[in-house]
């Protein structure tokens, strides 16, 4: 039994563990929380391995990781400030860095990462699933549990918000 589970872990879960950990890092913002949640999620996944046998292992694992992240958020809401659900996309970092061009160039990556961190969770998760996990719209709709049309509109909104924050506010510029 234990050996069969260990074998399943190596064969089915290990190839997608980086994807799972990356998603948890972006949803929880903390490496230790992400490790704890991914460990829980993997143990759950292995216990309920029958749930996926014929499906796509990666989407199935990411679904469980995502659900565990939200469960974790709920149970820790009182303990921590809830950054992820904040919809405040005004970035103070952006103001602080307009001082000189060198700073802006140097911190482009940081600026983008900070902007992604400030996205509402429902937009951030589709963005990460698309850009980092490289899932198709259909797979994202399975993981998040919403119709494909919703995936499409959330992804559009996520990109619009990022563009606005990063000074590419195209609609108002045009």
């Amino acid at each position: 039994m234990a050996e069969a589970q260990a074998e399943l872990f190596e064969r089915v879960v290990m190839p997608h563990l980086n994807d799972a950990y990356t998603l948890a890092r972006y949803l929880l913002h903390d490496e230790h929380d992400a490790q704890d949640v991914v460990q829980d999620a993997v143990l759950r996944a292995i216990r309920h391995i029958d749930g996926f046998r014929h499906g796509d292992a990666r989407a199935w694992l990411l679904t469980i990781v995502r659900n565990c992240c939200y469960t974790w958020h709920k149970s820790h809401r009182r303990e921590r400030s809830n950054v992820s659900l904040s919809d405040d996309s005004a970035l103070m970092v952006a103001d602080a860095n307009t001082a000189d061009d060198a700073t802006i160039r140097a911190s482009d990556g940081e600026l983008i990462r900070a902007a992604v961190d400030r996205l509402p969770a429902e937009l951030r998760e589709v963005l990460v699933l698309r850009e980092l996990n490289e899932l198709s719209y259909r797979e994202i709709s399975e993981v998040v549990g919403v119709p494909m049309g919703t995936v499409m509109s959330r992804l559009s909104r996520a990109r619009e918000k990022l563009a606005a924050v990063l000074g590419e506010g195209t609609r108002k510029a045009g």
Partner: protein
Amino acid sequence: MTCKECLDSLSALVDGELVADEAAAVRDHLATCDECAAQQAQLVEGTMRLKGALMRYEAPDVLKARIRASLARPEAEIVAAPRAVPFYRAMKWPTAIAAAAVVAVLSSAVTLSIANRNAAGDSLQQELLASHIRSLMPGHLTDVASNDQHNVKPWFNGRVDMSPTVPRLDSLGFPLIGGRIDYINGRSVPVIVYTRRQHVINVYSWPSNAVSDKAETAASHGYNLIRVPRDGEELWFVSDLNRAELDSFARLFTGKS
């Protein structure tokens, strides 16, 4: 196609998620509308920047080690069920020790073979083994997580009545993970945590007046325990790392080569 319809479909177009005739309709519009075409160009550029800036994280070895350790024992897996985490965290120490003992008993594994076998020694080793197994469950490995000994060592000040040694061994392939306090042998003891590839090493230490200065080793179901007495203290190394490497780690840690 209106501009609004076009803009609503741009993300899907860039992602290659439109079916052929939809994509063709959007492209037709883009060819005739400079404003929408500019939006598309910006979306493509923004997506490139985003992909360049966002990083993929690699699952750390210690996470893999914890998962493998949990899966190796069905009993441990039951205790590690998510609801058990707040339960464990909320427990007072005596309860935690009792629970640790339960873990130890549940792991039918605990048949320690040791040359100088005696009841007291056995129960100490069982405690250490239970502590090691429990440390691999979610949220239990470290109270202070840092790869810098200058963060880990001072953390123990005022928390335990001794100052543990925290050598830096990452250049030798044993990166520091952090430290925690555990309750072993009737006292609070500092535990320093290192890793070797995907194995966790727990180092326990406490003051001791034991006359025997002989190193002891024991093994149980894939775990190795090594005891090293040193200048009035007793050090224990516990890991699923193979004996030879744990031995060499113990020598590096104590500076006895």
